[in-house]
């Protein structure tokens, strides 16, 4: 078949395909997926997600089990979102306590009903550093958060988190307003430092909090004497206010951004689905043709082998295989192919039996044509369109099977797949804890991927199948 013929047939196919609405929808979604995979960095808020999905410290700045940011739209009390600040305002001041100081100020506008989970300061320092950290509230009160003193730094990261490092300092702040009685009455371990910082000051600030909206200033004071000689430096000072809601799809209990996980999982879903289905359908189609063409004992034996494979339950065996071998994506794909090639065999065999009886096959034999020429030149091209449809239709199965394996904890730990996200959700009891954003999106995406290829497959099947009866 020349190139011109091929483009002509492709054009013909497209003319038919355009009439299939579901097929077009499938194609549209698939095209979108391909764009996302190709331009993945553009879509990933955490660009290093691929290597760091299981690296806990990579995610430590994220809120834990936070719902998606857009849930605020439906909530009566708005939760704080995550904000990041770089390049603080730097001023030199005279401080009554430390004398001349350099002050780094971050401005944070708080306009929510539920306070952020944490306020985190990060920097890189060299030599010896001393920092005094406080926060100035819109009502003029100042909350001392703590001090950081570190020596012998060599570009090492410095991290100060209010949640862990400023607990006692913040309780000191409460004491200015609330009575000892109120403090002892309330279970202070349940109260987050940030809740206090962003609440109106008063007697009841522990039991019945009211948000204090307005502009907060986070001030980091470093005595000028320390920075004077230039050996001690502070760089890359950043402020992160960790929201109660996070990202497009929220986070899981390990603070991982689920949206990044799902985007990163897309390419694996496509890869696993396509590789498995293409290889297994090609194997199955050839197997079916060979069965039909050779017939006789070959057919009987090959059909027997086929039946053995058909009757084997796939999942249990895959579980055993994954348990024996180190779970790797290649082993998983390989073992899925072992079970999936049987899919098209029966249909292809029966179609090939029909084609085999066509006079032009007999004519080719009469001309002296060999077996393989007949198989590849006359039979396979007729069955190829069917196998394309079949490939599309078996993609969802492969994706779901991989997800099932991953859900059972037998996935490849070096990659991110939707099934693994679901597995983690199940382990953490996401359903019981109401973390729906952890379960629904990966499930939906698995279903969507399946639907996309099913739509494509049905449309292709409808168009390409009657072509077998062109005569």
């Amino acid at each position, binding site marked *: *078949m020349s190139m011109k013929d091929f483009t002509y047939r492709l054009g013909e196919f497209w003319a038919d395909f355009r009439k299939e609405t579901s097929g077009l929808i499938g194609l549209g979604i698939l095209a979108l997926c391909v764009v996302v995979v190709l331009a993945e960095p553009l879509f990933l808020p955490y660009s290093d997600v691929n290597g760091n999905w299981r690296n806990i410290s990579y995610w430590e700045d994220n809120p834990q089990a936070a719902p998606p940011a857009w849930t605020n739209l439906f909530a009566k009390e708005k939760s704080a979102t995550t904000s990041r600040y770089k390049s603080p305002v730097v001023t030199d001041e005279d401080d009554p306590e430390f004398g001349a100081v350099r002050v780094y100020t971050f401005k944070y506008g708080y306009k929510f009903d539920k306070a952020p989970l944490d306020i985190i300061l990060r920097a890189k320092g060299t030599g010896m550093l001393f920092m005094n950290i406080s926060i100035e509230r819109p009502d003029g009160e100042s909350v001392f958060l703590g001090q950081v003193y570190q020596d012998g730094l060599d570009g090492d990261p410095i991290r100060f988190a209010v949640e862990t490092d400023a607990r006692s300092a913040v309780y000191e702040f409460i004491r200015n307003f609330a009575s000892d009685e109120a403090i002892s009455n309330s279970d202070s371990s349940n109260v987050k430092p940030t809740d206090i910082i962003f609440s109106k000051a008063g007697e009841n600030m522990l039991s019945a909090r009211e948000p204090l909206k307005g502009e907060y200033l986070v001030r980091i004071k470093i005595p000028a004497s320390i920075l004077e000689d230039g050996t001690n430096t502070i760089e890359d000072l950043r402020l992160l206010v960790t929201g109660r809601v996070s990202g497009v799809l929220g986070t899981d209990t390990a603070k991982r951004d689920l949206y990044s996980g799902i985007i990163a999982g897309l390419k694996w879903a496509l890869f696993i689905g396509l590789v498995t289905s293409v290889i297994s359908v090609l194997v199955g189609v050839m197997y079916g043709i060979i069965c039909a063409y050779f017939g006789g004992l070959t057919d*009987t034996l090959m059909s*027997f082998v086929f039946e053995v494979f058909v009757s084997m339950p796939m999942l249990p065996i895959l579980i055993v295989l994954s348990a024996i071998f180190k779970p790797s994506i290649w082993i998983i794909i390989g073992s899925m192919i072992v079970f999936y090639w049987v899919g098209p065999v029966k249909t292809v065999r029966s179609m090939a039996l029909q084609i085999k009886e*066509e*006079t*032009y096959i*007999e*004519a*080719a*034999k*009469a*001309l*002296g*044509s*060999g077996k393989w*020429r007949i198989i590849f030149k*006359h039979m396979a*091209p*007729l069955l190829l369109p069917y196998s394309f449809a079949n490939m599309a239709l078996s993609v969802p199965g492969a994706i779901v099977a991989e997800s099932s394996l991953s859900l059972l904890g037998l996935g490849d730990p070096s990659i991110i797949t939707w099934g693994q996200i679901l597995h983690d959700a199940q382990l953490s009891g996401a359903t019981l804890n109401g973390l729906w954003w952890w379960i629904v999106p990966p499930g939906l995406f698995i279903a969507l991927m399946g639907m996309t290829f099913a739509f494509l497959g049905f449309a292709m099947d409808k168009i390409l199948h009657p072509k077998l009866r*062109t*005569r």
Partner: protein
Amino acid sequence: MSIDKNDVILEIKDLKKHFAPHQSLAQTLTGKNRKVVKAVDGISFAIRRGEIFGLIGESGSGKTTTGKLVMKLIDPTSGTIEFNGEDVTKTDKERTKAYRRQVQMIFQDPYASMNPRFKIKDVLEEPLIIHKIPGGHVEHEEMIVKALTEVKLNPPEEFMGRYPHMLSGGQRQRVATARTLILNPLMLVADEPVSMIDLSTRAEILHMMKDVQRDLGLTYLYITHDLSTARYFTDRIAVMYLGRIVEMGDADDVIDHPLHPYTKALIDAVPEPETGKVDVIKELPISGEIPSPANIPPGCRFHTRCPYAKPECSAEAEPELIDVGNGHYQACRRYKEI
């Protein structure tokens, strides 16, 4: 008139083809056998170089199976097929391929005999590729043009780019003939080549085939159910019934002076374009239909339908094909009495 050995291009001796019905693995293992279909059951004939030999029979007579056996599309159960003095039933792959270059086949349905996805050019180039005929695309194209000219498809270039479905029935049969001619064969097996072509153009195809035969000195094995075209087209004919030849000889001789009761009945049944027969109920000497080749009657296999059958016809052994002179053979033990 006996046939000179040197004149014979194809000789078939006691050829048999019995089909065993498809069995499942369990049936094979338990050794249970179903009834064997005796499609061809011991036929012998010789075709002379340059002659048109007709094989006549109803459906189920085994004529098409014989054609396939000659083409080596299926293997015989027993018997030999000698082509130019060499038995081709037990040859190796190389010899078989060489044989296929010399013996080609034209099928009943020319459209079905071409891959619908091939252009005429591809259809005709296929034998050249299969037999690794030296030369590139250009040389092959020249050969294709030559073959198309041979079958009078003019201008050839115009047809090469078309697909089979774009041609008329007659044109397709010409292409099918051209495909067989491109390898310069010695013999063609033609299985009902004109039965699917309209009456008005049937003769045109027959003439073309005859011209080609004369020009290239070909031999034809012409397989048909149609006695009328057989008489017109062939030199000699053999009439088959249930896998056996019942009568054989010069076409005109057999049709004008049939000896076997089956041949007689066959000829009687053929309508002719003559007036005055509308109100006549035709006398048919034989009734019923051809029995199944899986269930062949004992003795003379025609006795169940034969109007002249006597007890000995079913009781005694099957009559052999005997020479009654003039190269006319027939297989009825009572032919002199009837």
